[in-house]
């Protein structure tokens, strides 16, 4: 592998305490970083430094650190989840950046995602969208035999792709209108493509789209930024699919 054996970074991070109405960017310098370190591990190291210096550590959401739990996410130089496509923040490694680079980190900004502290926001509105109908209404215990309903290989694969959304909120953060259209469209497609989810499809679609408005998400403006930043590369064509079916 090529590239430097160690690098330095300046992290320009949005700092805002829970009780503050607004925040500011603060520069934090890190040196002697291994390119094999992940960006979040660099933040871990910064936080240990801040702790020893008596400063308040930077707050950010994270958990699985393998790109599947959907906890992490913030803007890096204006891009949701940073420069690599199809990737969450936790899967960025310092080899993706260059020595001496300045990285501006700021939280998702959307009306439906109130700020918690520093880089963390409250995304519970996404769960409330699912509550409006993002499920199959079948009680546990009343399922038919698993192979009773055949599902074509291609259909199952399409449903899987739609279902792989991790609920990180990058699509909302990247959208100029802070719309949750991709999130809702992906859930609708996942459940409508499968025969199990079809009986309640129209009701589900109506209720979830309605809930999107009441939760303060904007309308889709066809900018397609959502799909461009999605770490699971969920296609924007699902939004067209949702709108087409809604107008049927």
């Amino acid at each position, binding site marked *: 592998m090529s590239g430097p054996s160690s690098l330095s970074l300046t992290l320009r991070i949005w700092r805002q305490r*829970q009780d503050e109405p607004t925040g500011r960017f603060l520069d934090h310098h890190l040196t002697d970083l291994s390119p094999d370190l992940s960006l979040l591990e660099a933040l871990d190291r910064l936080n240990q430094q801040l702790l020893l210096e008596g400063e308040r550590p930077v707050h950010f959401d994270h958990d699985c*650190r393998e790109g599947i739990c*959907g906890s992490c996410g913030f803007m890096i130089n204006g891009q949701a989840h940073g420069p690599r496509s199809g990737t969450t923040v936790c899967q960025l490694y310092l080899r993706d950046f260059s020595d001496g680079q300045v990285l501006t980190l700021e939280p998702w900004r959307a009306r439906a995602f109130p700020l918690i502290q520093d880089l963390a926001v409250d995304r519970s509105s996404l*769960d409330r969208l699912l509550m409006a109908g993002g499920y199959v209404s079948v009680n546990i215990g009343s399922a038919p035999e698993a192979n009773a309903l055949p599902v074509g290989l291609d259909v*199952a694969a399409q449903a899987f792709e739609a279902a792989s959304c991790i609920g990180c909120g990058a699509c909302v953060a990247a959208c100029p209108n802070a719309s949750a259209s991709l999130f809702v469209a992906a859930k609708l497609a996942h459940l409508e493509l499968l025969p199990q989810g079809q009986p309640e499809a129209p009701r589900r679609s109506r209720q979830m789209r309605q809930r999107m408005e009441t939760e303060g998400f904007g309308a889709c403006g066809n900018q397609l930024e959502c799909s461009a930043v999605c770490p699971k590369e969920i296609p924007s064509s699902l939004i067209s699919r949702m709108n087409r079916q809604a107008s049927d």
Partner: protein
Amino acid sequence: MRLDPQLPQGPVADAWSRCRQDLSLIAPANRRHFRVLVVGSGLAGASAAASLAEQGYQVRLITYHDSPRRAHSVAAQGGINAARNYQNDGDSVERLFRDTVTGGDFRAREAGCHRLAEISGSIIDQCVALGVPFAREYGGTLSNRSFGGSQVSRTFYARGQTGQQLLYAVVQALLRQVEAGRVELCPQRDLLDLITLEGVARGAICRHRLSGALETHTAHAVLLASGGYSNVFHRSTNAVRSNASALWRSHRRGALMANPCFTQIHPTCIPSGDPDQSKLTLMSESLRNDGRVWLPRQPGDQRRPDQVPEAERDYFLERLYPSYGNMVPRDVASRRARELCGAGHGVGPAGRSIYLDFNEAIERQGRAVIEARYGNLFSMYERITGADPYREPMRIYPAPHYTMGGLWVDYHLMSTIPGLFVLGEANFSEHGANRLGASALMQGLADGLFIAPATVPAWLAEHQHPVIDPEHPACRAALESVRQRIIRLRSTGGSQPAEGLRRRLGALLIESCGISRSAAGLRSGLAEVAALQASFDQDLLLPDPGTPLDPELEKALQLEDYLELADLMLRDALAREESCGAHFREEHQSESGEALRRDAEFSHIAAWEWRADGPPIRHQEPLHFSLISPTARSYR
């Protein structure tokens, strides 16, 4: 103390159906008068909460996550087992049962394993109905693959994201009940104590992570589904915030802890690079279906893998275990990898990894086939290491992954504290001394979808303790003890952050109580834990950040629990003078280096009782086998 596992009398094969017939019921109209507190939103917790709410009980679900969808079940990659015999390759309930008991090296209860195998098929039915997009064949039927420790294809999967898809299905069922007003969702809470009154579980004390408020949650019954404790080791495959606190605090309140030294080290993980690396990432066991494990025959061979000729490669799993080859159970694969690396054959930095090679599979089946099967795993590997596994072999090494040990439960999943049920990885369960691949998801869902929803109502019907008021002296005392604990930690005024102490604890534990264990190593481990405990007590740095949100406090609280848990794991490993499954004592091995069980002395579950004023007490629950007689496991 006499441990009564409440096993049904009579033959094992239909024990569960006989048991269910005798369980007490509560009439539909009365169910809403009962309140159940569920802790954890993974497969077991979310499915139990949804099931009980559907039946009509009032459920409150507590999770430390911001959303239930983030629980660590989401990261399970490979699949879920079920005895459906869809592949017509000889599978049956009996065979899954036998594989589970044997895979666990005869350290699990027969009746529990049999029930798990019986229920496995219904889990798949339910998940399909809830919309899990499992892999399919062209004809539209469900597809299967094979996993370690079995010779049939019984694993259902959704690419390398099976856990994610199963979790979303049950979380969606849960959210449907939240919308219906039958489940109250309480995210962002850490459980810090269990409330008991007259020895019965009555609720929990939680800290709200955002407001810092200590809260009292009371209920008729408490269900812990808070996951395993692999993070006691430094760098496991668990999510970095997974912790043992709910489990350990319940243990301190009287729930016995069973087989704590039974921990699984998964053979195929991406090895560590930088000292500041926070965790290790698993590469699914399913990769071993097509990937071949090898090391250079010559110790200290520094050549690039493609420079090592075929004749100079040692495909050691295929050589040692011709009938299972690369698909031997995890404990066997991990032990052999460690052994050869110890003998100087290891590759990569510090010789701490082995090759998992797809070259032959790609040549035989084509890159497209391999990409369709494992594409997301290959790209994950490439992202983390910067190396392309289509061109060069993956470098992998074992890492702590799953804990078979956990809180002791009876056949009804109730702990030794009446009213406290334990589900999923948090209980010590059916995996014995070693869990087979794709069996964790099966067990979590069996507990949450079908077992707890039958046994918890039966207990509620027979034990009608009223829900106590949050102002009850028992609640106030528990709350006060948590408050005092936080004040005590804050006033330590030392110089060492929790993170550094935690790394030292985890590193010493993997060394002394990891893949291979010896009496001398375990004893020195105990001394080192005691020294670290003293550092923690006297030198912890825990400043007040000036905001309620305080991840450092969370880490310190978790570490205090890990220190005590590590001590118990070492004691348990020292007391178990045999090798079985993942517990390999160097003193007890065959000439060919296989684990040597000592059934006459150790065919039992060890259950530890916590004591405030002295060392823990080891209790035993003997194991009996009627359908299958314990033999030496052989994967050769």
